[in-house]
């Protein structure tokens, strides 16, 4: 293990950001990485618990966090990088965008500050790329089986890589121009610059994975074709159906789903949008974001960088407490007040707010009417009650709906394949196998919208299930 009592000797040293004024001027990442010496100290804080909750419940990928810390402490970066990759296909993604439930599950988070797990991962993978340690791992043998992966988000890519390494021929179909799905189009550049994805795609390509972009399965190629050409199909299209809001005025222009908005900015950056074809911009606008989650937060940062005039973010839930409340005790993900880097960059946040009506002129949105609500516990769940006399109006000319996602898009493939769905509208699976035996599904498609890290995990597990199934099928 690292250093006994290391956690007493060294304090957690959080990652610092570039100053706000500097970072909002562009879409670049703004973390200021720690020095290697600092990292060794941070790793030294790890207690190598007999029962590591970080690994046991925190990390969906079950990264070998204590072992990685140990290697870093011993200055054995290359082995750490190898070990990290045994459980995580894309640590460069997770180390940037993961909310790090490992850290809130760290036993030190009970009465101290947790290990700097996510940033250590970041350092390892960046060093791995810089040193050239991350190389293609071609399959040792070729099985002759072929798998089509539909959708190139984290789940699809993880599944693709695992299957390719197991010796299967893998083709990934992506309806957009670029590979990466949500990583490419959903996450703003200031959190994940797109060349980071390209760097990894090179490895995937070298491992023999074939990518077909701009091809929408079910539309550009038929499901019959896919089923004929491939031994197995894996659906990893994400949970694209956003939750909408059915209130008066919804039809006004400039009320759009957050993902469409973020997508526009991302397309701009990767150069997909030709001149003259404009995406929606927040520049000079009063922006209201409905939804207090991560996507909403990404909208805040994007709008800020697009030089919005004012930004409001509304959340229907009450403001969380500053410290870990009883209802989410350790090692659960705590329901506490958090301020993202984007929110820190400037926006007005309000909690316990419901939106009642959009007001506008002609088809343009001009304002939003809402009021405060109260949450009351009832025998069969929570009930919301509007508080009289709290009505308000916010002046706005752009409303972004960031209220989460419902499930996978039901049109297209899902419909063509007549796949069974679960109660929530996700594709129903049994160990990743859908009602159609040769069709598997993974990621948000089966779980509903969730974390990137869970999607990777899901893709890996689906790949294992597919591999077993292919071998059994003979």
């Amino acid at each position: 293990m690292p250093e006994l009592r290391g956690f007493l000797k060294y304090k957690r040293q959080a990652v610092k950001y570039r100053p706000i004024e500097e970072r909002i001027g562009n879409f670049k990442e703004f973390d200021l990485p720690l020095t290697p010496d600092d990292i060794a100290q941070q790793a030294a804080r790890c207690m190598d618990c007999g029962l590591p909750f970080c690994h046991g419940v925190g990390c969906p990928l079950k990264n070998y966090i204590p072992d990685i810390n140990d290697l870093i402490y011993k200055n054995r970066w290359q082995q750490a990088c190898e070990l990290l990759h045994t459980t995580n296909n894309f640590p460069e993604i997770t180390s940037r965008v993961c909310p790090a439930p490992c850290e809130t599950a760290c036993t030190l988070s009970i009465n101290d500050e947790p290990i700097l797990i996510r940033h250590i991962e970041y350092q390892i993978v960046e060093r791995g790329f810089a040193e050239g340690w991350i190389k293609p791992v071609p399959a040792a043998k070729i099985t002759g089986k072929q798998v089509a992966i539909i959708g190139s988000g984290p789940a699809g890519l993880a599944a693709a890589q695992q299957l390719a390494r197991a010796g299967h021929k893998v083709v990934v179909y992506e309806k957009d121009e670029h590979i990466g799905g949500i990583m490419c189009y959903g996450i703003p550049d200031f959190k994940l610059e797109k060349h980071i994805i390209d760097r990894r795609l090179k490895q995937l390509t070298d491992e023999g994975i074939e990518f077909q972009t701009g091809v929408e399965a079910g539309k550009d190629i038929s499901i019959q074709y896919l089923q004929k050409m491939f031994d197995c199909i894996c659906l990893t299209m994400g949970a694209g159906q956003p939750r909408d809001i059915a209130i008066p005025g919804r039809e006004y222009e400039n009320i759009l789903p957050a993902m469409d908005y973020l997508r526009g900015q991302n397309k701009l950056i990767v150069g997909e949008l030709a001149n003259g074809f404009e995406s929606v911009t927040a520049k000079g606008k009063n922006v209201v974001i409905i939804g207090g989650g991560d996507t909403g937060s990404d909208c805040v940062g994007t709008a800020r960088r697009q030089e919005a005039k004012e930004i409001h973010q509304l959340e229907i839930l009450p403001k969380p407490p500053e410290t870990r409340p009883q209802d989410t005790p350790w090692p659960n993900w705590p329901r506490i007040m958090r301020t993202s880097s984007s929110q820190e960059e400037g926006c007005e946040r309000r909690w316990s707010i419901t939106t009642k009506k959009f007001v506008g002129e002609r088809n343009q949105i001009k304002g939003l009417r809402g009021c405060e609500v109260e949450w009351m516990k009832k025998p069969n769940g929570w009930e919301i009650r509007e508080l009289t006399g709290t009505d308000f109006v916010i002046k706005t000319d752009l409303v972004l709906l960031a209220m989460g996602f419902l499930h996978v898009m039901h049109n297209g493939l899902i419909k063509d394949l007549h796949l069974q769905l679960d109660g929530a509208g996700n594709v129903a699976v049994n160990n990743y196998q859908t009602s159609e035996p040769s069709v598997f599904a993974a990621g948000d498609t089966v779980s509903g919208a969730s974390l990137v890290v869970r999607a990777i995990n899901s893709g890996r597990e689906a790949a294992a299930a597919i591999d077993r199934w292919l071998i059994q099928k003979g």
Partner: protein
Amino acid sequence: MSVKNQGLYDVQWEHDACGIGAVVDIAGKRDHSIIEYGKEILLNLHHRGAAGADETTGDGAGILFQIPHEFFAAESQRLGFALPAPSQYGVGVIFGSKDGQIREQCDKILEGAIIYYGMKILGQRDVPVSNSCLGPIALAAEPSIKQIFVDGDGLADEMFECRLYLARKRAEKLVRENLGDNGRDFYVTSLSHKTICYKGMFMAWQLFAYYPDLANPLVKSALAIVHQRYSTNTFPNWQLAQPFRCIAHNGEINTLSGNRNHIRAREVKMTGEIFGDNISDLFPVLTPGGSDSACFDNVLELLVRAGRSMPHAIMMMIPEAFGAKYHISTDKRAFYEYHSSIMEPWDGPAAMVFTDGRLIGGTLDRNGLRPCRYLVTTDGLAVMASEAGVIEFPPEKICMKGRLQPGKMFLVDTVEGRIITDNEIKSKVARQKPYRRWLEENRIELRGLFDSPELVSSDPETIAQRMCAFGYTREELKMVLTPMAVNGQEPIGSMGDDTPLAVLSDKPKLLFNYFKQLFAQVTNPSIDPLREGLVMSLMSFAGKKRNILDETPQHCRQLKLPHPILTSADIERLRSVKRSDFKVVTIPAVFDVNVSDIADSLRRSLDSLVDAAESAVKDGASLIIISDRDISATKAPIPSLLATAAVHHGLLGRRVRGEAGIIIESGEPREVMHFCLLCGFGANAINPYLAFEVLDELHRQGELPAGMEPSRIADNYIAAVKKGILKTMSKMGISTLRSYHSAQLFEAIGLNRDLIDKYFIGANSRISGIGLSEIARESLARHKSAFDKNVTGLLDLDFGGDYHFRHNGEQHLWNPTTVSKLQHAVMFEDANAYAEYAKAINDQTQKLYTLRGLFEFVPGQPVPIEEVEPAGEIVKRFCTGAMSHGSISKEAHECIAVAMNRIGGMSNTGEGGEDPSRYVPLPNGDSKNCAIKQIASGRFGVTIHYLANAKELQIKIAQGAKPGEGGQLPGHKVTDEIAKLRYSTPGVTLISPPPHHDIYSIEDLAQLIYDLKCANPDAKVSVKLVSEVGVGTIAAGVAKGNADEVLISGHDGGTGASPLSSIKHTGCPWELGLAETQQTLVMNNLRGRIKVQADGQMKTGRDVVIAAMLGADRFGFGTAALVAIGCTLLRKCHEGACAFGIGTQDIELRKRFAGRPEYVERFMFFVAEEVRQIMAKLGFRKFEDMVGRADRLSMRKAIEHWKAKGLDFSVIFHQPDVSDGRAIRLTCLQPVRTKDNLDWQLLEKAGAAIDEKKKTVIEMPIRNINRTVGAALSHHIVRKFGPEGLPDGTLELIFRGSAGQSFGAFLAPGVTLKLIGESNDYLGKGLSGGRIVVKTPDNTPLMAHENIIVGNTLLYGATAGEAFVNGMAGERFAVRNSGAIAVVEGVGDHCCEYMTGGTVVVLGKTGCNFAAGMSGGIAYVLDEMQLFDTLCNLDMVELESVWHQKDKELLHNLIEQHLKWTGSKQAARILDTWQDMVGKFVKVIPTDYRKALQKMRADEQRDTETTPATEEVFYAGT
């Protein structure tokens, strides 16, 4: 009548211990008085025996003496036949069946055998008996007893004795063969022309009442051996009473199964001129069903009859230690080494008295852990016995007093009429043949002295693949191999083992993991392999064994191995040996996996392996190397343990095992446990080639510290394995690898009968389980992981997860879900969270962890839950584990104590004492006083005040995580606070010895129980044992020893620090031990008077109910209570680095402690509520109605698990017959046995005076039966006056005579015990401030300082007070003394062992191993010969002369005191010539202690304290 094996009870686990004695007229004059003396000895050893459940059936007593010719001449005349002259006829004492017909058949066979050997029966005599004195149990088993008189027809001396022997063995054999079980009562007690034995199932007095013969004045003998047995059971067996034909034995042969196998293997080679062609009549040499002592007697008799002298044979079987640390003659060393090539020691604690009718002697084993004292009178009488004072002689009549010393012999030759000293006997025997030259010319050695082992460089291409094939894990590399290579010792861990048993695991487990090490508890002591390592040895010989009845130079033509680990270079050297008389053959041990029936493939490979071994032997091989180097894509290794055991037992079965040594060359073994198992099942040596390669690979990868030499790595690793093997042997009380070899001291959990009966013959496996096909499947899984995937590096190995939790690793019962749910439940009083927690543990339908996970309740008629006993009552049955303040912090310890006191349960001090301020209740009514106070081997903090404040006194014999081992609290953990509690010095290491040095046997335990009941008559006494096969019989012994409760701990209990291999591989689940205990107690009708408690990974109400049904009244929770107060299983207790302030003494970390008593209370109530729910469902209203109801348990049906489906729990659920209404749960209290204690008289006489603190002097006589004088008195004093007791000099008690054991135990301040005479063992045990004076009587001819006046193990755990001993003491004077001042005039071995404080002055001779493990205190030793340093264990101490003025003054003062109290002539002589004498004293001071003292002195001079002493002492050295 005999009791058959049933349920978990197995007769082979019966133990006994005893009192022994011998008396002889040195000149050989025969007289009836010798018999009378024998009787007196026995009667005065009564307390060393035990009575059965009926309180009148003894465990056995007997007497062996010379044939009383005058008596028999008269009797024969009366009966109408004539006897020839003395020595011309033999006498047999025959036990026979009560069934006349059977008896007749047996008689005929016996007569036939006698005639066959050319002798005839002259007549016979029914032995008159008076059975009205017998208890019902003995009576039911009473045989018919008669004597036969055999005419030798001119045979004389040895030839006559030999024929009688042959005739007896032939008759025994024929009876067995012809009558089978019907002949079981036929037993020839003795048949000799020299000696005769009377014995039976008696208490001492009954022997003489039963046999009127013994009172006849014509019954005369010059010598007699007597024996009183204390057995752990009360099943009657007259045949196992002692003495046997040659010996009486107090002790236990731990290595019996190995010795048995070896003897069997040797039979094929046995020839003896004297036996001629009839030798087959002698086989089997060992009478089936015989006890360890009986087997020993069988072999001794064989060796003697074949021509060796009795001392010679004894020296072969119980050799003294002859390691390099002993100064013994070269010839004697050669004698022992030579004999070690032909006979392994019969190892175990032994005090043995023996006679062949002419010689009579006694000997102790090398450890000397059984007492034996002797004296010689001016009338030429010698008396030897387990205790001094068994016969009273006036002081002026005694001309010599002594004790048997470890490994030494005391012999009287009644023909020569003299005592022969140990030296004389042994030098004569050792020089009768040129053993030294034979050895030099014949033994084969592997390497010179200076060769150091090399690491073989690994093949990086294949190493990962091969590691997979042998099941290596990443965790093993990090947690086991690396520490071994770096530190040269096994890694330490903490907390319990919460992973599934191998048979319940989904993972392919190595076959090693299905076995658990056995360990010694109560009936024999474990050894300290570190501090007493000088008695231990790993040396052995491998090769061809020859006729044991003969001695030739070729006998030692074998490979001599200093230890059993061979490097890869060694094995190559061996393989290249090309000699006609020493051939080495390698046989591959792999099997084909490219087949459809893998199990069959494995079976066939094993068969051909054994065949190949046999033909190699027949071709003359001396060594067989079984190798799995040939693994490949199609060949998997046969599990090395399976290969070893198969070949060992295969060759044994084919009667050729003695022809060759077996060497295992395998990639599989790497941990200590693996090597122990291989040796234990027959390997002579092991080459773990892959382990060496792996170390090289780790070195190459930079996992090991840079700059470590490869040879150093190999050396360290081998050293770690060696230490580990020694430790494992020592747990069982075994000193030499030669006797550990093939002794099979393991229990299998989850291996089926077929497998055991074919490959592991004789091994224990009680619940069946997997067989060859599952083993093959596990091998195949490993093989696949190696060869069916793209192996690129070490990261492709499984993580393992046996020690630390990892996803995809082994399952743990304490996992993120259970820990967090339990914490949520207790913190937020959330019953739902508790329910989820309990479900996650109880519901083992998906994942199996424990045996009880496979149990089901038999449904019953439910009752409304309101009618079920309230939870508030149930929690009173709950206890917390014995976690010491030291292993956990003050905050955690007190938190638990407060909680348990609030709910009326019991918390436990653990082994660390307790702050007396906790005895005072808090203002709010809470109390931090632990109800249970533990007494462990270190006796830390055990004072009379501590004992007096307990509700229960718990003797910790063993601990689930490390049974059979001691502990060590390193100096850096001994903070000021801990030091205060333990009466020691901050910064000074504290060592807990492996055994209690006052419990080497069951009667010793009874003595300690007696001591404790005297020291606190109001407290109950419990004894903590750990589950292993045979624990039931030990529990029965504990019940007979008068304990009120027995605690059965599971193997999986927690620890603050233990070697990982101990946590994992020792002990069994409590389900087995508890069920066995319940069954055995019920069968013995002892259950009604003793409570039973169970603990070990006890977590839920379901666990409690199951334990209750298996027989437990009470329940202990350790880790679960810790989790409730914040523990998250960091497993850092051993590092003291607990981030939650629990397992730590660090001030900073302790501040983080956030536990609250409410959490523990809530946990206990949640458990109790769960218990109630189950009770309601099953229809129990009262908790006690569930106790012992194993009939309400069954095994889950339709178990799908591929391994677990073979299990069979019927033995666990077995219930003994209770149709006679005997109790299956507690019904009464133990009888009060302390009523006869002398203290009650003392209190009567002096009570009032004491209460008024009035100066009082009382004089009284004393006998050895007056035990534990002063303890009850001291209890009275501290209850009244607190720990300060009375002012010095208030009470003076003067005794004359021989005091019994534990004289002055726990003596309180203000009391002086003055004993004029002598005393037995344990004087001043736990001395708590009083003064003990032992004075040699004035009118004796003895030189006080040359004679033994007090016994062994004195001042054990003394914390304060003084002792002045005017004579010599035995072994272990002032052991673990932490504060007493003592002056003595001579001591035996191991003086000042484990001492942590106090001052000892020795004014005379010392034995060896002085100051072993001594970490504190000071000793001054008079070293007139200037040889003291050769006797002192210098590991921890420094020697200096006494030059400092303060030292001189202190020493002078103490000697003056000694003179004042005892009138010692030695003291007077020294003081008279003080200037000359002071220079001859040596001061012994522990290195750390000196530093600590200097630090403390420096602190006194400083105004403010800056650094705690602890840190400076410890960190200065690092």
